[in-house]
């Protein structure tokens, strides 16, 4: 059996990357001759979530309940998964390669003394089991042989497209109330501040993102870019140099050490396209680069480009949008 840790969004639905992990799990299950795929969820399983899990082929939904799960503790979640494993004989445990997913499975693999492969994009070969996983922020792939029982790995975001199963499964909910040791609750979230609306949270899910790099020129060089973002209802995302220089706050950073975005349209302005940044934006469907340098990596990797100074091009675009809207 393959067990997939499914994470929920603020509305109790499965996050997209967890559905991607379930899709990956099904292809692995098919390769293994049709072994079942189960989900594990912490806390409530709302009706909508159960429908999603059924559509994505989860035979059973193992729900972890009890006081131990009132606030997040990586060790407690791992202990909960161990309880499920004890009753289900899972051979594979997977999660989306989110901060939570990676953290919980790292706990699980450390406790079981088995390896963990982070950010797999595909697999080939079941015996031995080999995954291809992202390294260097997704700029290279590693073929890694993953031994150990259970076999533990996370799936990189947007490596596979989330696809419902050909036939829905039952998604029968099985409740577990694990006995979690006090030691596993020492490092737990004590308080959570609500995120400010329309800050970095919206970057990862935005349909359109306006990007800004060194070409902005200084902390007062963002007016036109912010106006364009406003006209498009898009958040601003910036390169690492922009936050390093203190021009914009870190939560706006897109890149290997910032947010990874996957919008329908990304408009990087004055961003050369260093690997650090590309690692965070390469999943964008359409990229419109605005740059003075026609040979900048961001331009050559883009689908569309305008060659010019963002301080001239962006205000002209803003004016054109306003003109057409009023016309």
């Amino acid at each position, binding site marked *: 059996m393959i067990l997939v840790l499914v994470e929920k969004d603020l509305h109790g639905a499965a996050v997209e990357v967890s559905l991607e992990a379930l899709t990956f799990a099904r292809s692995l299950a098919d390769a293994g001759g049709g072994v079942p795929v189960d989900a594990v969820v912490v806390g409530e399983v709302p009706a909508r979530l159960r429908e999603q899990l059924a559509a994505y082929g989860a035979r059973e939904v193992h729900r972890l309940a009890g006081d131990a799960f009132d606030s997040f503790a990586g060790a407690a979640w791992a202990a909960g998964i161990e309880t499920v494993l004890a009753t289900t004989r899972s051979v594979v445990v997977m999660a989306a390669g989110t901060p939570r997913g990676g953290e919980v499975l790292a706990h699980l693999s450390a406790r079981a003394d088995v390896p963990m492969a982070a950010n797999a994009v595909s697999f080939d070969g079941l015996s031995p089991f080999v995954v291809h996983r992202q390294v260097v922020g997704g700029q290279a792939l590693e073929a890694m042989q993953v031994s150990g029982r259970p076999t533990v790995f996370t799936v990189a975001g947007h490596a596979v497209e989330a696809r419902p199963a050909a036939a829905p499964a039952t998604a029968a909910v099985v409740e577990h109330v694990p006995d979690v040791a006090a030691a596993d609750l020492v*490092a737990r979230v004590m308080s959570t501040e609500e995120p400010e609306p329309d800050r970095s949270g919206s970057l990862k899910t935005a349909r359109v993102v306006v990007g800004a790099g060194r070409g902005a020129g200084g902390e007062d060089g963002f007016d036109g870019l912010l106006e364009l973002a406003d006209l498009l209802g898009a958040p601003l995302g910036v390169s690492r140099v922009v936050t390093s220089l203190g021009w914009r706050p870190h939560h706006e950073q897109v890149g290997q050490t910032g947010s990874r975005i996957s919008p329908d349209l990304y408009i990087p302005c004055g961003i050369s396209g260093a690997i650090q940044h590309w690692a965070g934006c390469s999943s964008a469907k359409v990229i419109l680069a605005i740059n003075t340098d026609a040979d900048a990596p961001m331009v050559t990797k883009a689908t569309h480009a305008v060659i010019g100074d963002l301080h001239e091009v962006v205000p002209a675009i803003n004016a054109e949008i306003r003109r057409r809207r009023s016309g």
Partner: protein
Amino acid sequence: MNHPMTGVNVLVCVKRVPDASSEVVLTDDGQGVDGRFSGYATSPHEECAVELAARAATATGGEATVLTLGDAEAVEQLRAALAVGCTAATHVVADGQQFGPADVAREIAAVVRDHEVAGRPHDLVLLGNDAADTGDFQVGIRLAYELGRPVVSGVTTVDVSEVDGRMSVTASGDGPDGHETYVVPLPAVVTVMEGGVEPRYPTIPGRMKAKKVPIEERAPVGTPSGAGRLRWSLPPATPSDVQVLGKGPEAAPAVVDLLEQLGVLSR
């Protein structure tokens, strides 16, 4: 684990990695990045961990010790940390490529235990959340289990203070539902992400001082079991098929045409 709390001696673990700001070139054997082309740096999350370690040490009147496992050249990363607030350094001299995440965790744990025996307990161990090259996302957590300590992962701020009569670490970072805060009694392990703190620039006196700090060199305690790595590869280079819409502000109408085609203007 009871020692007089005269000051917290923080251990911060860093890794020498190929600089990620340039193009990735792999070694001929496909076992990693050929850093001869890119140069090397300390993994970005760890630069922040070094800063947090230095601040925690200063705040409590303790020491910040920097540790790395790597070849002889990795001493550069130790000197860099010594120039920005660390006061002692330990170098496990080894070919880092042979060491998987579990191996590295075991080696760090051995250093922590040996230092404790020598009267230099590390009540707080800081690491980066993930290395910029191998991206394993697990060394800190494995270390915590080796040491039997609690671990907080992926935070951006770290403060050490007495909470309810016990020296504790208060750490915070962005979680899926908002900014999260942990309060954990020491000893503990914390993995750090970039973003909560600005690493300081080394001063000239700082650099001079760093050169004179003796570095504890040691051999690995175990034989590495490895990382399961078969080979690295680069995704095939895709030729540029960029469509240039124009030059300068005159391109604005073509840009807005594209925005309309994509349906992102209909608001």
